[in-house]
């Protein structure tokens, strides 16, 4: 993949990357930093991408890793734990954005990619290295916890830019 194609892809994906990072990290500045770092890392390791058709999945993984690193850094400073799946009432009491952030990790990642970044279930599964069935099951569990009535395949207000 050449740099001009890379630029086109980034142009198309940057909003989606930002939404993912924003939901993951919960703030504009942190999300911007994560997107900047992701685009930079993708640019310098572009030659390592063997199959350009998986560019979207590849860069999403870079972003998720970047967000995880940031959360690990933060955990050392402030404790913001995830809530267990059983704490249904606590999830109800939180605004949606906070509730998403405090979902258990295995539920948070699919929800963000599927319902906020605009990935399909298949793309979500691929980005998280999960079987499609596993991803679908986690999405169902997450929607139940968040009390969201969205289908797995069509969200209420599909984001325009898709990964």
């Amino acid at each position, binding site marked *: 993949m050449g740099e001009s194609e890379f630029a086109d892809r980034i142009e198309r994906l940057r909003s989606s990357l*930002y939404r993912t990072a924003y939901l993951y990290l919960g703030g504009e500045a942190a999300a911007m930093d994560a*997107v900047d770092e992701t*685009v930079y890392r993708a640019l310098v390791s572009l030659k390592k991408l063997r199959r350009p058709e998986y560019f979207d999945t590849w860069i999403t993984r870079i972003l998720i890793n970047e967000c995880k690193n940031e959360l690990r850094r933060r955990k050392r400073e402030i404790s913001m734990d995830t809530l267990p799946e059983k704490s249904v009432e606590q999830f109800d009491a939180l605004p949606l954005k906070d509730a998403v952030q405090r979902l258990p990790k295995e539920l948070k990642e699919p929800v963000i990619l599927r319902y*906020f970044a605009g990935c399909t279930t298949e793309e979500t599964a691929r980005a998280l290295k999960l079987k499609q069935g596993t991803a679908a099951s986690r999405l169902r569990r997450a929607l139940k916890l968040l*009390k969201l009535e969205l289908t797995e395949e069509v969200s209420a*207000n599909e*984001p325009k830019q898709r990964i």
Partner: protein
Amino acid sequence: MNRNSEYNKLLKELENTPLKLDFTLERARARKSVRDKRRRVRKTIFIPLYTIAAVFVIFVALVNLSAPFAEACGRIPVLSELAEAVSLPKESGNHEIIGWNSYDADGNYYPLGGRNTIYGGNYYEHAGITIGSEDEFVEQITIYKYEYPYDEIWISTIFTDRTEFAAPLAVKIK
């Protein structure tokens, strides 16, 4: 507000991306350009420098640890001077004094000299060197036998102007 309308509101909010996001690629390119420049500098300056340093370290190690290598270097004009400059002082190694010129309590002088040294039942021939501690410029001569791994006979000469010269005698062991 139920969760679905909250979801729709949140999606709307997320559509408003910061202006800074439009220039993320430019920032990445600028960072990459700085990184590439640093790499070029590293490639053109530091890598050759590190290579030269590594070769030098290996050379010093070989000169000091391998007698055949040091001897071979000694036959090459420029290398012999370099090898001499980088050879570590042998006095720091374990050695045994074989002989020296000295005075006894009555002031009798015992000179050290000759073309050979006999030590431990072995005959060591001083290749090309005749030791002469009666020379007017020589104050003290000491002969050392270095232990393994050197296994060499060395001579240390202190001259009357207090300068010192130490060198292997390059002996032949019979």
